[in-house]
């Protein structure tokens, strides 16, 4: 498969994530769309790793593992972010009983 298919796929997922962030008001959904963006990046990384592996693989057999490990770390970070993020969302829900980000506009101008 040419790499551009994967690029388009990832960027498409990424863009859908962005559209989600832009159009939804539910903080949890927005957060999920961010996760989608992260996954798009992950997919792209993996695809590129295979591409490099094909191009340079003979000389550097472990080259592709770099990107895969990177993806692994992204998942680690994502997990940490999720725990913090959900904690914050829950805290807000406890205070205002809503997860609508449009309600959050005390801070402006």
């Amino acid at each position: 498969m040419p790499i551009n298919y994967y690029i388009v796929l990832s960027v498409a997922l990424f863009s859908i994530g962005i559209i989600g962030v832009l159009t939804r008001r539910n903080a949890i959904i927005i957060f999920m769309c961010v996760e989608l963006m992260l996954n798009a990046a992950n997919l792209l990384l993996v695809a590129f790793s295979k591409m490099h592996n094909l191009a340079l693989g003979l000389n550097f057999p472990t080259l592709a593992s770099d990107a895969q490990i990177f993806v692994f770390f992204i998942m680690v970070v994502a997990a940490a972010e999720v725990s913090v993020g959900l904690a914050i969302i829950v805290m807000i829900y406890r205070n205002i009983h809503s997860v609508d980000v449009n309600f959050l506009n005390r801070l402006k101008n």
Partner: protein
Amino acid sequence: MSNTLQIVWLIPFLPLIGFLVNGLFRKQLSKSLVGIIGSGVILASFALSVYVFMQVKGGNIHLAHYFNFINTDSIKVGFDFQVDQLSSLFLLIITGVGFLIHVYSTSYMHEEDSKDFAKYFAYLNLFVFSMLLLVMGGNYIIMFIGWEGVGLCSYLLIGFWFRNNDYNNAAKKAFIMNRIGDLGFLLAVFWLYNKLGTTDYHTVFENAGKLTPADLTGITLLLFVGATGKSAQIPLYTWLPDAMAGPTPVSALIHAATMVTAGIYMIARSNIMFTMAPVTHYVIAAVGLATAILAATIALKQNDIKKVLAYSTVSQLGYMFLGLGVGAYTGAVFHVMTHAFFKALLFLGAGSVIHAMGGEQDMRNMGGLKKYMSITHITFLLGCLAIAGMPPFSGFFSKDEILAAAFKQNPLYWGLGVAGAMMTAFYMFRLYGMTFLGKFRGTHEQEHHLHESPAAITVPLSILAVLAVIGGLVGIPEVFMHGGHKLEVFLEPIFATTNEYVKEHQPHEALSHSTELGLMAASVIGALAALLFAWNKFSKYEKTDAAETGLGKILANKWYVDELYNTVIVKPLNSFAAFLNNVVEKKGIDGAVNGVGKAVNYGSRQIRLLQSGQVGTYVLLMVVGILVLFIIQFFL
């Protein structure tokens, strides 16, 4: 041999000392002491001037360099004095007439309290100092120092009674109009310096030939502008009548005898440059003549005794300029001298009258003073005759010299000059008649107080009267006496180059003696006729309430020149200044500066609306930003 003239610096220095002593110790000194110091220093200067005059007459002229006023690589101006025939003559006039007026003032100003009395004398001394500086300076810059200095003193003395705002206005007007002229003078000096690299008289005159005609014309015209300011010529003459606000002795000294003649001195001093600039000559002659006539017409209808004299002064100055304009430098200087005598005399006489009348200056309220003030009356009459140009009084000689020269240039000048002279005779005897003849028209109280003035007043009057009578004898024309024109001989070195130049470039036929005599006769007869007419008409003057009409009204209102200036210059300037202040400055420039601040504030209020508080909007704007950056990076 110049050693004998080493002391010239004392001549101006003594009045300066007088100024400082009177000025600084005005609270401590008694009036008599002030008078003695004030007059004494002038007397001493006069004595020295006489000495200097004698020396100069012996051919001993002197250039003194005291110190470097400005000495840089690019300009060198020495604090130099030049004492020669011309300056020594002026020295005599200034210190001589000045001394008499100082003496006169001791009595005239006696009613002032002692501080003001001292202040007055300090100013007067300062004036004499400045005037002496003006005539003794060895270059144009020193002359300019004196030039502005006399302007300052004139300002101070006109506004001496500073409680009265009219007087202050008059003083201000005098100074500002002088300044306009001074600007011309300054520009001329810049020009001169720029072309010749120096302003020393002797170098300038030696090198005058190197200047192009355009330069010469420009410089001389600008110098003449300076002269019109100081010497009250059209268009800058209106300050002089107003300057009568000052004490009368001041009018006599400054506004008749000395300061106003500074312009004549300056042009006479620079004669070679003017001679080489024919255009300027025409301008000077025209302006002088116009001033002479205009001022004379105005004087015909004035009722304030000092105003008449003031316009008369303007008119006489016009004659002097006419003389300068037609190349009769000696005649102009001669007229300066005789005018100093008789006009000082007339002013002092008028002062004596005013003194007697308790401050009254309106001639309509005078009359018949002959019998109360005999000395004043006689001296005044002599002065009037002198100014009217009656032979053999001094005015006759000087005025006719000018008129003769004018005729040589252009008979029209002469014709107009004679017309002016007739008017002069008329208004002077109108003045005389209204004041001394007829019956007294003032209040009883005034009549009760009428008295002859004390000796401090009458003695100077007498001396001046004598001078006014015989002063002309130093300049008896060739027609009457060969070599009778002693003044011309005396001043010959000053005008030597000019005379040579004239011989070479503009040779004129000398007037035949018969023509000259004819002209004299014509002018004398004309003046005499006017005199007699006035005498006849005003010896029985009665006060009327009828307002002036027609031409009389215009003349009484001085051709409305002040009003014209007011509408054309003063008011527009004022409104322009107001416009600049209120609109351009506040709304325009400051508004623009503040506008930047306001724009920032406004921008702040608008831009912060971007910060809507909505995450969605934020992200949207961020994504738009991303798009923009992508476009910049890849598609621009």
